[in-house]
């Protein structure tokens, strides 16, 4: 998770003890506030300002009005990057969600062998994106990798050299990295479902699949929304993994929005247009987060009506 958490967990925080010593403690927030404002809040405003300037990353920053925006919006690279980003988001959601639910529910069982499964399952969580990408790059190399070594032609594809295959590999590797994390979330969620519900269903003769769809999934509704938000935002900002694995290539086949921003800014030295892309990235992220919160709100309403 590249430093982004779900806005969905925001609690509506009530201040506990209505203060007698109103605000006298505020100074204690100062150290956190200073660092946070300097390196998170100011940059957020800064990126908007920078999108109206031109800057090569080294020299002077000069205001340039809307030029960055017009160049970015007229560039066919932008719709392409947006499209690739949406494909990555949609497919990683489709792959990760069902698998994470199945695995999470499975390892939520208290059987001892399932505990052992869980220990091994979570290993990918510990590896850095760079380490994972480098491993897969070596493993999928058509000349020196897995396919060549095993002599299986089917595996001997130029995995990272063909656009459609490379996109598939990116989605597979992202899923490999993050399914353990989401399984962990679902494991926690599944353990909170009261066992009596399953016992009652058992009495009514409901089979396992029926139980999954009638009890487990509805009970995991909030967990699904939390996990989906994390998948969407995580895929939206997936940078390290794609950067090391494909660098956006071949061609621009895996050039997602975050990578597009990096390449424009730090490789082509066009910080103005790169900042405009960053602003778009923030807006898309906020849009998705609000949509997920709205979904969450609807789920809460329907649960109240159901009760």
């Amino acid at each position, binding site marked *: 998770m590249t*430093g982004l958490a779900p806005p969905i967990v925001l609690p509506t925080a009530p201040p506990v003890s209505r203060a007698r010593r109103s605000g006298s403690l505020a100074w204690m927030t100062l150290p956190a506030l200073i660092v946070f404002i300097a390196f998170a809040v100011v940059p957020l405003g800064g990126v908007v300002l920078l999108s109206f300037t031109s800057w090569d990353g080294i020299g002077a920053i000069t205001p340039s009005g809307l030029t960055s925006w017009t160049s970015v919006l007229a560039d066919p690279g932008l719709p392409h990057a947006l499209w690739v980003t949406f494909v990555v988001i949609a497919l990683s959601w489709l792959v990760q969600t069902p698998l994470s639910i199945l695995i999470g529910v499975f390892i939520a069982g208290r059987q001892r062998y399932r505990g052992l499964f869980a220990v091994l399952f979570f290993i990918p969580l510990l590896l850095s994106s760079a380490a994972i990408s480098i491993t897969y790059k070596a493993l999928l190399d058509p000349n020196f990798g897995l396919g060549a070594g095993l002599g299986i032609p089917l595996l001997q594809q130029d995995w990272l050299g063909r656009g459609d295959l490379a996109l598939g590999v990116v989605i597979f590797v992202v899923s490999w990295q993050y399914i353990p994390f989401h399984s962990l979330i679902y494991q926690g969620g599944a353990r909170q479902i009261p066992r009596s519900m399953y016992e009652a269903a058992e009495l009514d003769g409901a089979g396992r699949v029926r139980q999954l769809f009638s009890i487990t999934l509805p009970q995991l509704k909030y967990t699904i929304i939390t996990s989906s938000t994390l998948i969407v935002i995580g895929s939206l900002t997936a940078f390290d993994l794609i950067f090391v694995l494909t660098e956006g290539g071949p061609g621009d086949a895996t050039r997602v929005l975050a990578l597009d921003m990096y390449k424009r800014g730090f490789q082509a030295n066009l910080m103005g247009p790169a900042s405009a892309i960053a602003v778009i990235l923030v807006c898309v992220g906020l849009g998705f987060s609000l949509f997920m919160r709205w979904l969450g709100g609807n789920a809460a309403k329907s649960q109240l009506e159901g009760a």
Partner: protein
Amino acid sequence: MTSTLTTGAHESGAVRTPRRGSGGSVRSRPNWLGGLFSCLWLAIVLVPIYWIVITSLKQQSDYFTTNPFAPPVNPTLDNYQLVIASSFVRYFVNSVIVTVGADVPAVLISFMAAFAIVRGGGRLLPSLNGLFLMGLAIPQQAVVIPVYLIIIRLHMYDSLLAIILPSIAFAIPLSILVLTNFIRDIPGELFESMRLDGASDWHMLWHLAFPLTRPALVTVAIYNGLIIWNGFLLPLVLTQSPDRRTLPLALWSFSGQYSINVPAIVASVVLTTLPILALYALGRRQLLSGLTAGFGK
């Protein structure tokens, strides 16, 4: 209730023993679908890991001639020697400095802020809390250009401090969220009785709240630590000289440099992962609960 009905009254004592009691027998039909997918997934997880471990022990010449899944014929540690000789010790030290240097201050100042938000009152503190929580929605990628500009203007470019300061800033929102939830659970009477004894807020912060919040502090520290340790973007953008590299960045440049020497590359992957695997073995439960800090429930 229902379980006594199904199993009969004579077994009702077994209801209380969860492992092999009647509760277990209700769900004892094997979960084939979950089991199948889990076994499949286990293979998908373990195959690459098995492969990097055995390959890292192979000689480069053997790598091309032997089956990739066969254990090494002439096991060797040469690859590890090559990696260590490529100043990986230096990168390891850099990673430790960045992780500890960012994580410890981040947790401490977030703890102070969380304490003030919970224990203080007025209108200012809740809105500050709102500001921090807003930080949860700021993606690091989106603000990296202005962060780069600020670091240049502060003349900190290409130093470890350049990585540390933004890492602290991005660790703060989630740390405050988790810690405020935890401090809220401390009974108010404890604070009141300490106040009656004449303790100052500062004293209560470190001598009451700190020990009681320790599990949450550890959890938050683990979560932040893992993210900073594995961080790639900030070191990539904010440093440039080889001797400022952290491990993920060093891995990346090493793999570019030795692109054909697969055994050496995977040895570098194994080597950089070992410290975290060791931590995982030592405190798995803590680590996993740290990872879901703020997302659980």
